[in-house]
């Protein structure tokens, strides 16, 4: 994994759990439906059928997989699976696909409902994902870097320009998100994780048992400075007459942008 990707993942994790945790919501008693097409002997898959909008498992969202920021082990209190009589099933009886909102058992138990915490705000890395994600969406956009030598000594300062693009459902939500994110990153430090054995989730959305918390050696944490937040209204959007049809354009109507610089110190 390249440094750029590691920085990106570290910032993503920080924003998700340390800043946007206020936007974690609970979906209660969601029916679990058996998925015969993707089940096999010994791997029985149930999918949560949430009626929430935006969908808890839409792009950039998913179920919460740690209890709180700083935890390095799988959550114990965020997701609870129940059987048909409403008794909680032990966590040792199933695995959870946090990305797609699924419960996978060996067939020894029959889950019926799930109560889970999920991320209301979608956090994505690609502008192209905004439309698919449904608002509220935050796009993390980290730009170019230039390794600049220390004035004295042999190390380097590695700065990057970054942007958070906020797409909200209304003015109040936009302003809340803008302030929350601004306060959450302004003059703050983010642990510069090495992600030595991959991210917290595996490729299939389940907890990565190999995950270890390790910082990159001989490099500082990620420092964020020069943070500036502004409302954004693409001029054309403001000119569109409001009709029922133009509700479609609301994706771009309540936007804000936070500009920042993120850097770390690196020893040679």
């Amino acid at each position, binding site marked *: 994994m390249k440094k750029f990707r590691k920085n990106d993942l570290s910032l993503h994790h920080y924003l998700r759990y340390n800043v946007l945790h206020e936007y974690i919501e609970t979906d209660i008693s969601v029916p679990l439906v058996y998925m015969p097409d993707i089940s096999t002997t010994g791997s029985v898959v149930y999918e949560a059928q949430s009626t929430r909008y935006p969908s808890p498992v839409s792009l950039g969202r998913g179920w919460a997989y740690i209890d709180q920021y700083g935890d390095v082990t799988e959550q114990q209190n965020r997701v609870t699976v129940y059987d048909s009589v409403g008794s909680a099933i032990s966590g040792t009886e199933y695995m959870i696909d946090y990305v797609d909102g699924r419960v996978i058992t060996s067939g020894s138990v029959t889950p019926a409902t799930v109560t889970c915490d999920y991320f209301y705000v979608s956090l994505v890395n690609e*502008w192209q994902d905004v*439309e698919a994600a449904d608002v509220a969406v935050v796009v993390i956009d980290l730009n170019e870097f230039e390794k600049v030598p220390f004035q004295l000594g042999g190390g380097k300062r590695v700065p990057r320009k970054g942007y958070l*693009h906020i*797409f909200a459902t209304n003015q109040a939500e936009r302003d809340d998100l803008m302030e929350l994110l601004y306060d959450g990153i302004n003059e703050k430090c983010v642990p510069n994780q090495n992600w030595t054995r991959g991210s917290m989730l595996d490729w299939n959305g389940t907890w990565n048992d190999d995950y270890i918390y390790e910082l990159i050696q001989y490099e500082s944490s990620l420092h964020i400075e020069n943070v500036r937040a*502004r409302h954004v209204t693409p001029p*054309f959007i403001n*000119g569109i007459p409001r009709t029922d*049809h133009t509700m479609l354009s609301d994706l*771009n109507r309540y936007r804000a942008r936070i500009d920042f610089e993120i850097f770390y110190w690196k020893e040679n």
Partner: protein
Amino acid sequence: MGHKLDRLRTSILLSRIIDNEVGIIVDDLMEKFDKEIIPFEDPEDPARPSLFRDEFRRFLERTTKDNITIKSSEVGSKTRREVSLEVIVGVGDESKMGFGEQLDEETTDGLKIIGTIIQGISGEWKMLSAEEAGEQVGRFGKLVIIPAIQYDKEAPKKGWPPKPIWKFSNFPGIPDFFDIDFSVVVDRITKNLAEALKK
């Protein structure tokens, strides 16, 4: 009297230096415009950004000049007084480029197009002119963009021509477009002024 003449001379020199500086800043921005916007335009688009290039340049020149302010103040003792200058540099009129929430009636279609491109826009869009619509479109301008789905739905009923998706749909914007190293600009102004005063 001599002191006032000195200040007048400084002010004239500074004005010339700033005119020159505005040219340098605008050249840099227009270079970004040519490299980061023009290559993505649709040459068949009747409202493509290159058609508004000169208008955009004039807008940048005018608003950048308005955004460079010099504050002078006298410092020192009774026997020795010196003029201290503070140079504040800003670029463009941000409200017309989509920062903030006010749509200015003076924002032309060309500036709207370029502002929207710089800020980026999510989703697929089609562009419609008042001429094609046969009526006023939008709140102020002669052009609007409409979600592609809506356009295709309404076009047959309203007699709008078939159109391709606007080339700058789902465009991530150029958030660093106005990022200029202002410390370099201020250093240059200070250096040029010092040299001019020596002459």
